């Protein structure tokens, strides 16, 4: 009612409103386009840089006259890039399997069993996940040195897996707590063992959170720099993050196009994985904040 009354008396005013609205809309579209350029520019620079015949940023133009794949063949023939790739893939896969296993078993125990020491266990997990991860860096270095796992992939995998337990356990435990117990109880009455209940009932129901845990643990090693730099020393043991970092910060900083080719080879699979599983990532992050 009030709306109609206020609009009716002056028709010319509403015309003015309409042109104003169109102008705002045009401005907003321009803003959206500008932001899209801002968002895409670095990605485009890397993508085009990798196909650019020049070697450095200075000698390349944003739109090159001709494209080349020589930087990719250079990576294949002259550098250890594919060894690093294999290393990273191996570490990421192993970390995903071990971490997910450790997190699920611990979360299942904390969620479904009542045993002496349970509350202390949960409380210590909670406190432990608050410490910045690399406070223990020096000790980890010395420990791995002592047991001969320095400059060894398994040493790094152990460190990643150990670090993922406290937070992951709380996250997955919170999810398990939310699942109804009636199914399990029915299965137990039918004589199912703890292990059967776990694999046949809990696992299928917690698919989303398991995807999240597995995915974050798989992606983690691709991104980590701190521990990889600390533990892996020799060139043939490096992971991609260190290798690519050294390509643009080393003594010869001029390898931008080679770096770009390497970056494309890393970014494409990770980005695709990320986009396909985005739904789970957002859900998992929300669960981390709301449900614990």
């Amino acid at each position, binding site marked *: 009612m009030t709306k109609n009354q206020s609009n009716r008396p002056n028709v010319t005013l509403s015309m003015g409103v309409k042109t104003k609205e169109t102008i705002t809309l045009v401005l907003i579209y321009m803003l959206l386009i500008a932001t899209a350029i801002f968002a*895409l520019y670095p*990605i485009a620079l890397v993508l085009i840089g990798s196909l650019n015949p020049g070697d450095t940023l200075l000698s390349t133009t944003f739109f090159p006259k001709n494209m080349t794949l020589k930087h990719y063949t250079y990576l294949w023939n002259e550098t250890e890039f594919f060894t690093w790739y294999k290393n990273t893939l191996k570490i990421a896969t192993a970390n995903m399997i071990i971490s997910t296993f450790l997190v699920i078993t611990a979360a299942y125990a904390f969620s479904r069993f009542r045993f002496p020491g349970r509350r202390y266990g949960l409380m210590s997990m909670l406190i432990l996940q608050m410490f910045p991860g*690399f406070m223990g*860096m020096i000790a980890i270095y010395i*420990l791995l040195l*002592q047991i001969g796992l320095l400059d060894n992939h398994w040493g790094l995998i152990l460190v990643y897996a150990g670090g993922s*337990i406290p937070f992951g356990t709380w996250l997955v435990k919170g999810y398990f707590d939310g699942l109804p117990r009636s199914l399990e109880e029915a299965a137990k009455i039918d004589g199912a063992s703890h292990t059967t209940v776990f694999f046949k009932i809990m696992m299928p129901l917690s698919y989303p959170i398991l995807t999240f845990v597995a995915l974050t643990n798989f992606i983690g090693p691709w991104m980590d720099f701190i521990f990889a730099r600390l533990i892996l020393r020799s060139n043939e043991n490096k992971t991609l993050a260190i290798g*690519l970092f050294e390509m643009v910060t080393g003594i010869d900083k001029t390898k931008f196009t080679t770096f770009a080719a390497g*970056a494309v080879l890393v970014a494409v699979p990770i980005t695709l994985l990320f986009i396909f599983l985005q739904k789970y990532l957002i859900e998992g992050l929300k669960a981390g904040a709301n449900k614990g």
Partner: protein
Amino acid sequence: MNEQSDIAAMNYTKKYAFIGAFLSTLFMGLGQLYHRQYVKGVLYFLLEVYVLVFWTNPFMYAMWGFITLGETPQKRLRGKIVEQGDHSIFLMIEGIIFLLLFIIFLFVYYSNIRDAYKTGRLREKGKVVSTFKKTLHNVWENGYAYLLLTPSIIFTIFLTVLPLLFGILLAFTNYSGPYHLPPKSLVDWVGFKTFIDLFHLKTWSKTFYGVLTWNAIWAVVATVSTYFMGLIYAVIINHKKIKLKRFWRSIYILPWAMPAFISLLAFRNIFNGEFGPLNQYLQAVGLEGIPWLSDPFWARFALIVVNLWLGFPYWMALMSGVLTGIDKEMYEAADVDGASASQKFWKLTVPMVLFATAPLLIMSFAHNFNNFNVVYFLTQGKPVNVEYSYAGSTDILISWIYKMTLEQNQFNMAAAVSILVFVIVAPISIWNFSRTKAFKEEDMIQ
């Protein structure tokens, strides 16, 4: 008459629990033997004998090492090692391992006493004491949880608890270059000296306060800027007049999907003062190039812009979900009341979104406070600041700690600063956790 004998019996039998607990305190298993649980008693007894016989000496040696951190320094004659000497840091780690094992042993000892006490109570009430077979069965029933937990506990103790304890204790030693680096020289306990130096020695305190101030500004600006940019774009795209919603969203999500270290290294090149494309463009339109990464102000500015690029897509994706969940009728009611677009934004959208995302906002603050990757990959803490010890103008506490540990051998100072970082960040995490559902259900708040 009957009543009296009952009381007498109670007075007499009350001693079962007490005597059992007392005997088990004297030596493991004695209380169980007293309760005629022979197999269990003998097993407990043998465990303590084994520990006493085989572990006393190593334990005493470990404690000696832990307390003194070694007494014989390495001796060298004409550059050759004549006597290996004690390695303080190895002694310290060994000490921590033995202390952790000792705590586990104490826990077993305690459960032995408690078991003797509980069995005693059962006898006082005239109930049948469980046989060994039954005990074994109970252990299997309750033990399933422990079985599930064992791998995680081992991993956590050795890869998280032990390193953290060591990291904390380091702050109370003088483990630092160039004079206190094993195996060449010994390390000693120095109490709170490291902390006193950090606050009172000019070279350290200036760096600490300088880095801390920038760290705080950085955390606030980085969090707020990404949050609001995400919100604004979510609102714009969500507006009914905007077409191709999915298209815009998928473009803006790309920076988040790209591996961050790759984008950061690309930005490092884009902002490069000499050959970076950004300065080339500026020069092409007749402007002067800006010393992006070599001037403290511009380097900080670049960090915030890059972080905005990296961080806003996450908030946009999250808030798009929140916005579609808001009741449309509220906006219609606001329209009826003649609210302007900006009023609707500030009075309706912002409070609702804030309410839904507050915990995530706080987590994001804690994350940005320790955002090592952005700083290290983009600027490595540079440009150099001559007034700072081992830190550059864009270093935050965590990257300063990293440099002190890996590049400068200032282990004790790095440990002290880590403890302070924990003191700053932990209350945020505790507050955040204390209001989660999982936490409340555990009733951990007393």
